[in-house]
């Protein structure tokens, strides 16, 4: 009994989460999708490392860090672009996007140097 009620609760929770997320602006959804893409790519590389071994380690690190780094930057972008977030109310999203592009370029310059 208790179990079915908890399942139901969970279902209700997911439902409300989904409906709440549906209200999110499209640009934020795109960013979320991008973050998911980056994280999954990183995960696949980790699985590959677990199967094959960590040689060459720098390549593995740069591959994973590239994904994680860009995901983090995307999260930062999302924070700044979010209109609900009052802290960055005065910051135009274009400026945030310019920061995102600049940081990504710097990050990938380092990654490429480390790739070997």
């Amino acid at each position, binding site marked *: 009994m208790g179990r079915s009620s908890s399942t139901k609760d969970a279902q209700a929770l997911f439902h409300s989460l989904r409906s709440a997320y549906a209200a999110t602006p*499209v640009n934020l959804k795109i960013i979320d999708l991008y973050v*998911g*893409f980056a994280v999954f790519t990183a995960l696949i590389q980790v699985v590959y490392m677990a199967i094959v071994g960590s040689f060459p380690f720098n390549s593995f690190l740069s591959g994973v860090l590239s994904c994680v780094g860009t995901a983090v930057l995307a999260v930062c972008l999302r924070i700044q672009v979010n209109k609900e977030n009052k802290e960055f109310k005065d910051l135009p999203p*274009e400026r945030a996007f310019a920061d995102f*592009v600049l940081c990504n370029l710097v990050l990938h310059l380092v990654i490429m140097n480390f790739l070997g």
Partner: protein
Amino acid sequence: MARSLAGFLALFPFVLICGAASLFQPISDSHRSAALELFTPTHGSFKSLEETYEALRTFEVLGIEKKPDVTATACRSISETLGSLTSTPKDLFYALKANSIVKCKINEKTSEFFFFFTLQKGIFTRLNAAVNGASSLLDFYYSIGGLVLIKGQTSKADVYLTDAEGVFRSVKAFSQSDGRWRYSSNNPESSAFAAGIALETLAGIVSLASSEMDQSLIITLKNDVSKLFDSIEKYDVGALYFDDKLVDGREHQGPLSTTSSVVRGLTALAAVTAGSVNLPGDKILGLAKFFLGIGVPGDAEDFFNQIDSLACLESNRVSIPLILSLPSTELSLTKKDSLKVRVNTVLGSNAPPLTVKLVGAFSSGSKDASLVESQELKFDAETGVHILSNLPKSIDVGSYTFVFEIVLHESEHVKVYVTGSQTKVPIFVTGLIKIESAEITVLDGDLGSIETQKKLDLAGHNAVSLSANHLQKLRISFQLTTPRGRAFRPHQALLKLRHESKIEHIFLVGNSGKQFEIVLNFLGLVEKFFYLSGRYDIELTVGDAVMENSLLRAIGHIELDLPEPPEKAPRPPPQPVDPYSRYGPKAEITHIFRAPEKHPPKELSLAFLGLTILPLLGFLVGLLRLGVNLKNFPSKAIPATFAILFHVGIGAVLLLYVLFWLKLDLFQTLKLLGFLGVFLVLVGHRILSHLAATSAKVKSA
């Protein structure tokens, strides 16, 4: 060490032979092959007529059949020289000399005979004039020599000197009181070489004289010759030679050419004068020994001098030397070698009937009485060898000096030939030495009782293994007996112990009679052995020049148990470094590379490459699901251009990164990135500010 010892043993007999070489071999085939090598014409002819003559004369004396054919070129050169009016007496002399051997067939055709005849006439007149105008010894030598040769080559007997005695006196004027001669009256230096030339010249004058010469002149000349022979020099081995000790080395001739010149002069003189030249036969024999002692000269002129002089000695009228030689001076008792002696003339032709006697045999180094009775050697007519088939019983292995005497059978030969009174020849008698009752024993120190005893077979292979401590003794003993059953004492009887650390100890094995014995008392030797316990290899050396079975043999090893070294025990000396290891090649350096890491299978990697694309696909699909569009893309021309440039700029930077990964280095990348970055900032600023402006407009509206 072992190798050097064996080398030393091998060298020993040669050293001994060289030390007392008093054996001379007559001219043999080695001279003939050497002659063909030394006198090789270049392009079918020799450099000069003088060389041509020397080569032809050498071939003639040695009786070489297969000589290089130079007759045609030589004849052409001879007739050119004889026909030319500018030839000097020297040229004419050598041309005629060469012709005397080649015998150019100018005489066969009448016209040429006439030509040759007139030519001879011309040469004769020219040489005669040269004789009359001559002022130095060499002028006389060449012109007189030329005349003598003309006389020898024509049947006409009208070649003679008108004033022979006058010319004789003018040549004689160059002579000195000691028998030497000067080259010219204004040159005070005299030499034996010039004496030889003068004697030859004077002999020529005598043969050219139309009437009998004044005998007193000839007698004084012979006195000069004996005076000259008083100044002869001597080697220890009995060889005699002439040498000019000139301070001025300009025209200095070596002992070989000097002696050769004297021999030629002497034999020429002896050939033309009646009555013998009074010279002891030993001197002629000494000269022959000198020429034979040279061996085979490496120089063409030396070779010619040697061969020509020996040919002169072979047929001279003073006395013909006979040379006693042995085919082998090493005789083996074991193989029952017989003593063979050969007696030849210097050029190797057969000697007249004679008997060789062995008159004595002396052990080297001792001056005791002779070991053998005088006995005759048997002559084998077929091989021309005198043989003593059984060595006397008193001759055992060792080195000896045998003394031979030659006795000519016919009394008239005694006047013609000279044999030397006695010939001493060093002889080595070798044999197999019997090695008996060889044994190696370990004895107990105090009582001397036998601990272990092993027989040794020194002729074969041994590998004894013994052990001893410092209170015991090692004894090695053996007996050496000669084939005649006497005690034998070899040059070397050595025992060597070699420790594992390569430290060697060598002991001499002493003897009493036949018995050889050495006792090593280890108690007294511990210090010498540096207290080094362990395995010692034992090596025994028994060697001698006359021992046919000299041996250097590893017997086995002994395990020594020596006490611990005390505080101040001497340290073993450092072993000499093998020079090969110091200067030889270094050990090869092998480069070790890191083993390549294990790579995963290619399929797996490719599968994961495909997997990494999946999230990207998911991302794109998600974008489509969200209904993303490009409606916000600026529609006006200028902002659209900037927007496109902005994206192109980002793409260019990413492309630059890929190139950086593939081939560029950091500096090239940063340089390019600088330009791209400035461009990107400009473009990005324009487009983003434009977008910001439009969105602000929308907000405000």
